């Protein structure tokens, strides 16, 4: 047996990898060898810890010391001080892991983790995702063993039903019900598919699960296969997730080698195999019928439902499709029981949900919270609030299908139904926080730009309708808005929602409709007063020099790239609005705060 006195866990998720964690891993290995303690200390690359903002992050056990923003130059010091001499390097610790008295807190006491409940992410940042033994050590494949030897397929479906789990891919469809629909049809061939296309801008929880705990998805798909009577699984994962794809491949290879995938698993006669299919970045391919068409090698376009995939799916056979995070909950439900899972969350939304926090928030990263946690808790307690003490304006959830949640709903418990009732939706769990400097019309335009781009073009309401909406927003942000535009936008939005073929078009108007609902005055300021209150829409901005404050130093005129500022030294300067390109360079340079924008 190998016995280590200390283990150095380095996050190698995509976030930390891009901030250089691979070099950190190598530096630790090198320094530890140089110090002659490589037999005592193990370096373990793991999945995402969630605090991506402060990456690369490293945790050293048994102390549980949480180091953040580690640079290669810091590694020798950590090795010689912490690992050789047992002295924790305090100045490199994650700052919030020290309390006022400078006591070191354990990870679970840090605000960022305190209110979290990690179910889907429980192994992320804890195990080495490329080592199946570590997964097994943390009860991996135990749920599969239990299902195959102790439960009937009906009992499995019943357990998932009782848990109250709902689809985490966006729609929130009850998972148990979906499994029973796929179980019913009699067919010699059925398929289990996993949706790892994760197209919502800003969402990356599925990627983190695949990178940090790939086996939990494989195991859940096998359980689903047993439950519905399928022997083949497909994971549809976007090619833009190379680390996830690589770790999935390794995981599948290791599971096959151990006989956990393949024929006669655990000697029970159950056979199951899993293959990977790569998507190439079309958002619409996340929609279930388009995804199945893409796996078949067809063009990724949605088709009308019914027939639903549970009846007629991949290659015309009954097919079960679930999202990565949905699967990531399954093994825990089997092992701990449906009541355990149903004991978390709200009446109609059970369990936990992972959110990708982004935008104007201090702790950008991944958080997993019990359903029913309030938005205020997520943003202020876990997320650490908004940078520079700016005011909260809104949170956008549900990506291009969702909407904005304004200040007045900060205390609403987050669950599927509450979010829909206030005009947003859970979506896949992207949460973008906006402060007073964000223009809501501009945000709506951003999301619509995305849908216009991603519309597959099959149905006219989406292909033409979203473009017309986009053009209207463009007009408004450029100062050409007219009275009546808002009503037109609302009418068109409603029509698109009612008539588009698939979820993409049916939800595309949401970002516009919800911002009009809560920030109508901001739209009206753009249209009626030709003014952008947040100071974002360039065409509506004008820079001016306050003659009271200007001392005539000429710095602004020298920095202006358009030659729009003129004046005499020691007298007041002025901006020629017809030449100004609104780059803001003058305002940045002025030492006397004499230039303002409005």
């Amino acid at each position, binding site marked *: *047996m*190998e*016995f*280590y*006195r*200390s*283990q150095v*866990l380095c996050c190698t998720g995509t976030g930390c990898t891009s901030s250089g964690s691979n070099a950190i891993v190598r530096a630790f290995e090198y320094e530890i060898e140089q110090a002659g303690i490589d*037999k*005592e200390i*193990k370096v373990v690359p793991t999945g995402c810890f969630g605090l991506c903002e402060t990456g690369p992050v490293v945790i050293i*056990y*048994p*102390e549980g010391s949480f180091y953040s923003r580690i640079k290669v130059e810091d590694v020798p010091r950590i090795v010689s001080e912490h690992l*050789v*001499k*047992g*002295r924790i390097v305090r100045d490199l610790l994650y700052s919030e892991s020290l309390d006022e008295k400078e006591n070191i807190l354990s990870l679970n006491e840090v605000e960022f983790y305190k209110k979290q409940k990690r179910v889907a992410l429980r192994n992320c940042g*804890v*195990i080495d995702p490329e080592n199946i*033994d*570590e997964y*097994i*050590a*943390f*009860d*991996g*494949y*135990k749920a599969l*063993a239990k299902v195959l*030897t102790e439960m009937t397929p009906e009992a499995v479906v019943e357990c998932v039903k009782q848990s109250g789990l709902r689809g985490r891919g966006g729609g929130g469809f009850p998972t148990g019900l979906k499994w029973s629909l796929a179980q019913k049809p009699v067919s010699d061939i059925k398929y289990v598919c996993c949706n790892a296309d994760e197209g919502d801008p800003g969402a990356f929880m599925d990627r983190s699960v695949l990178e940090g705990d790939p086996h939990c998805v494989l195991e859940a798909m096998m359980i689903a296969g047993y439950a519905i009577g399928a022997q083949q699984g497909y994971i549809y994962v976007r090619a833009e997730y190379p680390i996830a794809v690589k770790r999935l491949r390794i995981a599948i290879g290791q599971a096959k080698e*151990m*006989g*956990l995938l393949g024929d*006669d*698993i*655990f*000697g029970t006669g159950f056979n199951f195999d899993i293959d990977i299919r790569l998507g190439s970045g079309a958002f619409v391919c996340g929609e279930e019928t388009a995804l199945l068409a893409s796996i078949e090698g067809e063009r990724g376009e949605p088709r009308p439902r019914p027939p639903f995939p549970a009846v007629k799916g991949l290659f015309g056979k009954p097919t079960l499709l679930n999202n990565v995070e949905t699967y990531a909950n399954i093994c825990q439900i089997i092992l701990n029981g449906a009541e355990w899972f149903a004991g978390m969350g709200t009446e109609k939304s059970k369990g936990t949900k992972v959110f990708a926090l982004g935008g104007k928030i201090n702790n950008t990263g991944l958080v997993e919270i019990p359903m029913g946690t309030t938005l205020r808790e997520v943003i202020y307690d876990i997320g650490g609030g908004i940078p520079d003490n700016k005011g909260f304006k809104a949170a956008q959830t549900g990506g291009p299908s969702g909407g904005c949640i304004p200040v007045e709903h900060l205390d609403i418990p987050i669950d599927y139904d509450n979010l829909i009732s206030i005009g947003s939706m859970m979506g896949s769990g992207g949460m973008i926080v906006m402060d007073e400097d964000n223009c809501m019309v501009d945000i709506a335009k951003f999301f619509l730009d995305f849908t216009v781009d991603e519309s597959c073009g099959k149905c006219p309401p989406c292909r033409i309708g979203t473009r017309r909406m986009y053009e209207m927003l463009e007009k408004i942000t450029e100062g050409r808005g007219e009275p009546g535009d808002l009503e037109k936008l609302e009418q068109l939005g409603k029509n698109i929602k009612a008539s588009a073929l698939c979820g993409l078009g049916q939800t595309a108007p949401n970002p516009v409709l919800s911002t009009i609902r809560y920030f109508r005055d901001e739209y009206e300021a753009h249209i009626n007063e030709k003014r952008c209150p947040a100071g974002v829409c360039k065409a509506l901005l004008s820079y001016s020099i306050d003659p009271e404050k200007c001392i005539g130093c000429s710095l602004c005129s020298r920095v202006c790239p358009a030659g729009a500022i003129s004046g005499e030294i020691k007298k007041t300067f002025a901006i020629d609005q017809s030449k100004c390109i609104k780059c803001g360079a003058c305002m940045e340079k002025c030492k006397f705060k004499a230039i303002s924008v409005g």
Partner: protein
Amino acid sequence: MKSIQELEAIRKKTLESINLRKDTEGTRIVVGMATCGIAAGARPVLTAFMDEAAKRNLQHVVVAQTGCIGVCRLEPIVEVYQPGKEKVTYVKVTPDMVGKIVTEHIVNGNPVTGYTIGYYEAHSK
């Protein structure tokens, strides 16, 4: 994989090598490894504890190091923490004392009185 027993065997074996990531309830053997400890020969003591733990397949045992405990003249110092019990402090520990500490204290639960700080202070005068 042909049987659940096989799975269980892998689980047990791997858990031993990673339990320090989740185990806070087990025994902690803490070796003072500041400059004073290292100078007095703490490193071979530390590795002896690790070898012993590995050899005996000890579960729920963490061998860790700490900084200066404060009584530098008695280094190498080793402290054993077990849940629900007073910690036991061993002083002037040498590698050949390690086997006895592990067998009698860690495995059988009887601290080796003769090696403890109290005994040393009472008898060294």
